[in-house]
């Protein structure tokens, strides 16, 4: 069989999509999570329920929305609810299987920072802030995080915990009264990290094809552990790539359209 070419971003999105199951209820962040969740819906998980914090429930967009509240999300949803209802009845109530988040910074315990780089009161970079993530991260049963793998993004300790992951080596999430399990996997363009069941530290658990362990370690801001018998991520198949590229193509065409 001829070798199929693909990019690291395509591998990341496809690896993330594969972690979603049909009929799951998934609360989706905009950007990379949204691409992976819709890829899952258009391939192996046609009955996945996608929910965006703008209030759209069971949405099936033909193209990827640029913003969390693009009209296509409302047009293709089973129902559209107000933002207070979304957070009260649908997220806080414990109806979400998977919270699917992006991040600016993530640390070795899967804590997410989207608030500031540097000191909160004197930041060197002011990031957008929390959005829905703090409650998505705690109320969803499991969390997936998708993020490109760089030393700036993968730090030993985040400058600010916007949305809690597994906190630290000693504090149990349950002791803080957090219902959800927290990060199950961090999917990057180099591999997949999962928390070690004993130490809670994220460790390399799957390596994407043509990536070396050393490369992943260099892109990680703490001494990264590696699981024994490290598996290799299955490369994208032709079907996954075709659906993803069609989706991206449709989306960029649509986003370039001028407004009448």
């Amino acid at each position, binding site marked *: 069989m001829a070798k199929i070419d693909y990019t690291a971003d395509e591998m990341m999105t496809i690896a993330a999509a594969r972690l979603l199951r049909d009929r799951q209820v998934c609360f989706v962040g905009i950007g990379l999570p949204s691409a992976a969740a819709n890829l899952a819906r258009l391939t192996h998980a046609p009955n996945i329920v996608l929910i965006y914090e703008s209030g759209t429930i069971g949405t099936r967009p033909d193209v990827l929305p640029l913003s969390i509240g693009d009209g296509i999300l409302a047009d293709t949803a089973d129902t559209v609810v107000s933002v207070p209802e979304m957070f009260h009845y649908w997220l806080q109530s414990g109806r979400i299987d998977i919270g699917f988040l992006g991040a600016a910074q993530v640390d070795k315990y899967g804590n997410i920072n989207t*608030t500031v780089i540097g000191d909160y009161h004197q930041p060197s970079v002011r990031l957008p802030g929390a959005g829905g993530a*703090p409650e998505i991260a*705690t*109320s969803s049963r499991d969390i997936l995080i998708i993020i490109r793998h760089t030393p700036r993004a993968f730090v030993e300790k985040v400058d600010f915990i916007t949305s809690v992951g597994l906190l630290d080596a000693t504090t149990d999430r349950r002791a803080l009264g957090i219902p959800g399990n927290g990060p199950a996997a961090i999917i990057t363009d180099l591999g997949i990290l999962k928390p070690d069941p004993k130490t809670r530290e994220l460790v390399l658990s799957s390596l994407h094809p043509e990536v070396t362990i050393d490369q992943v370690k260099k892109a990680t801001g703490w001494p990264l552990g590696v699981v024994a018998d490290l598996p290799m991520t299955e490369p994208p198949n032709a079907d996954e790539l075709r659906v993803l590229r069609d989706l991206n193509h449709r989306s960029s065409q649509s986003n370039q359209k001028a407004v009448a």
Partner: protein
Amino acid sequence: MAELTSLKQAVSELIRDGDSLAMEGFTHLIPSAAGHEIVRQHKTDLTLIRMTPDLIYDQLIGMGCARKMVFSWGGNPGVGSLYRFRDAIENGWPRALEIEEHSHAGMANAYVAGASNLPFAVLRGYRGSGLPQVNPRIKFIDCPFTGEKLAAVAAIRPDVAVVHAQKADRRGNVLLWGIVGVQKEAVLAAKRSIVTVEEIVDDLGAPPNAVVLPSWVISAVCAVPGGAYPSYAHGYYGRDNNFYKAWEAISRTRDGFRAWMDRHVIGTGDFAEFRRSLIKA
């Protein structure tokens, strides 16, 4: 009862220097025209309240209208940073900006408490997050029935709320649909309110359970067709994603931003003229 009036008059009479001002619309129905009019009338020392500050608050902050901002996500949706917001926080330009920062769930709850005339709202939120340490309006309380530790957020009670909607009738009743965000809560939480609409019609034709703001909870209704641009009005026009992308370059430098605002906002009389100035640009 709402008065049907011009946007110029509504902003002039209902928004005062130093007011706390909630302009809502979650990606959809953002009251952009009202934001421009506030800039034109040089309102100042405002406390700007909005879950997603978006381009309108980037503009108000960059023009020096704001003293403080209350928010839960301050980016350019789908694009990246709000540079005028960042410049105010990182460098104090054009003036220092105090912030009160929430999560979406917390802030939506704070509006619900305001609309309900309660002092605070309760949610299962903010656990493990650093936000309660930097925002004194978030506390934790014990549930009196189960003992569960829950977050409490102080109510948001703006002086003025401003929202955009699709339709109003001639008595000033307002109908909106699509992604309705926290607009209803913002209007009901505020002491005064301005609603801009795409059109004024004889009959709203609203089905039961539609999101209708009765005339008697609104101070002023103003017809401003296209007034949510570059966001969108469901059933009327789509979001101009290209404008959001273009804002990145327009807003990145202080000089570029001020020149753009001078030409397209200060230099135009109203939103229709603003739209024409963009076509000419």
